[in-house]
């Protein structure tokens, strides 16, 4: 069954141009993605054991995807045996209802969250807010965009499109409402200090914590959370209720599988051997210990299972490291918002239409990829991103999802070039037709679809004589000896 993802209904060219004209975002993303990619290159150098671990991790993820149903059953049994409660949601709507009911039954008024792409996918905050709860994002970047009522522009740097002055302005309004002194200055340190004090109020008052999960280990019933800020540790330790919302593709079978995978997100995403905090939670607090009194894990499908057994199955191995975003020439220019839903960059191009059966992001495979294959090289989980993008393009043609003008143009082109005679004819035609667009020996424009290409580029004119023609005229006349 297809899943649902939130969608920005503005057309691609509007979203794209918004990205291209946002100077702040482009500057932050340019330096951030470069730093991350360079860090990744360095961290693997002289650390061969992690290459072996990566390969073992890929195998573990592939095995898990092939046995999802069985693993899901077993994971639930383990978590329940350790005192946790489990839930399974087939759709986004079900997942929202489950979390809302857990919260309502416990009389929750204030929820603190650590970063989770899945809860963005579910638009969970809206649901809880509609039931009268306050929901606070505690990852600094997420908090900033929550105050701005926006969505993340990069998986790892959600507020990359905001500058310090804008953030200070948001914090000043927030400080007034929270009766706190505003940030002392607009440098990153002062702003972070303000957020520390501000979010501390919420952490201490919260009744419920919500997290995602980077991995979920079947054998031990463990949810693994990886952060650099330490907010997940507040969320898991302080409120009396903890709900981890986990995509079913996050399951891995054994504790050993986890040991191979645990370093991969940080190594590949930001070039660190491990993030500052790795938190492993396997149940509610024991009698005197620390942690939540109630521990819930909500497993969410929302379109994931429909990929099992298809050529796209490996997409479910994604560990959301962000490496493919960091190397993508399209992402680095347009940023995350242009992709129109939760997932951006190459993985977004593939996953958004797949999870929703082309309901959202159907345009992405055609417009947001240059087929440079950088993402395929970067992906630590060996996901065939470039192959999938091409496959999705083919599928769009099969399903008649491409624009009529594009179909017509490409149909003409492929018809013409399918035979040598057709090819020769088309060149003769082009040589004649180009006269309209020639300026000082260069082709400056062209009709139809090709017009867009010429907005920023010129092309040498079609040669007066092609190599084939030259060869036919000169063959055997000593042109080669």
């Amino acid at each position, binding site marked *: 069954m297809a899943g649902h993802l939130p969608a920005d209904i503005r057309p691609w060219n509007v979203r794209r141009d918004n990205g291209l004209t946002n100077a702040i975002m482009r500057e*932050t993303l340019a*330096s*951030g993605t470069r730093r991350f990619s360079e860090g990744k290159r360095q961290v693997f150098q002289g*650390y061969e*054991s992690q290459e072996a671990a990566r390969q073992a991790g890929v195998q573990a993820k592939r095995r898990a995807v092939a046995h999802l149903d069985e693993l899901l059953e077993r994971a639930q049994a383990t978590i329940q045996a*350790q005192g946790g409660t489990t839930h399974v949601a087939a759709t986004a709507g079900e997942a929202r209802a489950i979390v809302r009911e857990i919260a309502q039954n416990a009389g929750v008024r204030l929820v603190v969250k650590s970063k989770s792409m899945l809860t963005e996918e579910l638009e969970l905050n809206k649901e809880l807010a509609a039931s009268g709860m306050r929901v606070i994002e505690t*990852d*600094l*970047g997420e908090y*900033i965009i929550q105050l701005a009522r926006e969505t993340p522009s990069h998986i790892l*740097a959600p*507020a*990359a499109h905001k*500058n*310090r002055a804008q*953030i200070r302005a948001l914090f000043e309004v927030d400080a007034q409402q929270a009766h706190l002194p505003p940030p002392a200055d607009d440098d*990153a*340190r002062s*702003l*972070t*200090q303000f*957020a520390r004090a501000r*979010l501390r109020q919420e952490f*201490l008052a919260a009744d419920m914590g919500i997290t995602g999960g980077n991995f979920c280990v079947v054998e*031990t*019933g*463990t949810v693994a959370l990886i952060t*650099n*800020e*330490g*907010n997940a*540790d*507040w969320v*898991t*330790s*302080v409120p009396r209720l903890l709900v981890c919302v986990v995509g079913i593709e996050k399951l891995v079978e054994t*504790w*050993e599988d986890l*040991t*191979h995978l*645990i370093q991969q997100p940080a190594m590949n995403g930001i070039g*660190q*051997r*491990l*993030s*500052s*905090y*790795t*938190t*492993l*939670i*396997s149940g509610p*607090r*024991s*009698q*005197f*210990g*620390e*942690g939540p009194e109630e*521990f819930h894990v909500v497993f969410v499908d929302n379109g994931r299972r429909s990929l099992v057994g298809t050529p796209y199955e490996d997409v479910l191995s994604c560990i959301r490291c962000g490496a493919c975003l960091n190397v993508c020439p399209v992402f680095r220019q347009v940023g995350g918002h242009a992709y129109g839903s939760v997932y951006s960059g190459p993985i977004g191009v593939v996953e958004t239409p797949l999870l929703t059966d082309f309901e959202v992001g159907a345009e992405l495979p055609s417009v947001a990829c240059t087929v440079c294959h950088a993402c395929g090289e970067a992906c630590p989980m060996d996901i065939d991103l470039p192959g999938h993008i091409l496959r999705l393009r083919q599928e769009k043609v099969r399903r008649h999802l491409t624009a009529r003008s594009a179909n017509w143009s490409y149909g003409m082109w492929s018809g013409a070039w399918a035979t040598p005679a057709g090819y020769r004819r088309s060149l003769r035609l082009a040589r004649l037709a180009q006269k309209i667009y020639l300026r000082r020996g260069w082709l400056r424009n062209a009709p139809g679809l090709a017009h867009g290409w010429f907005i920023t580029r010129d092309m040498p004119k079609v040669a007066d004589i092609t190599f084939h023609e030259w060869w036919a005229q000169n063959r055997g006349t000593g042109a080669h000896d």
Partner: protein
Amino acid sequence: MTKPWAASQERLVQMFEVHWREHGGELFRVREEQSWPHVLNQAWTTLLGDQGGSVVYWVNADVAHLNWENWLRRCGAQAVYGWDAADDMRSRCAQAVLGLTGSQWAVAETGSVALIADADRGLLPSVMPPAHIMLVSTQHLVETVQEGLQQIPGSHGMPPLIKLVTGPSMTADIEGTLVVGVHGPGRVAVILYDTVGTLGADELR
């Protein structure tokens, strides 16, 4: 002559030091029990300067006999609370200037320290105060994350809460500028200690 075991342990110590410092963590070493008070003082001064305030702490069994409370007071602590699961622990941790904790094991090749919560050991002292000191026995150094994690699912089943600390709390969410001390401690130190000897009676008081 160094014993082979000691030599390989020393290699791990050096590896740990490189990676722990890489993240901006401070490192101190206690080779004999006599130097604890002095080293603790050094660590305090490095993290907190001459700042005073309250401290929440727990330590591992092998150093539990030492006089932590007294030493911490001499460093500048105005109040010292040993960890227990009492309800007011949370507010004590929230007010403390320093959390001092033991650890389960530490990983040399990543510079990470493992903390496991149970009835006598909470993780809040590692989360809430602005500074955190961790005591790590050199005997509990392992080379890889994998070696460390393999020790965990023991015969008593899974501990509900495990944490690996690999450096200070940090963020680069504002214009990509690295800032430490977002939600967790911005200043972190490890004191690596060797197998215990005996302290003079004076020191223990």
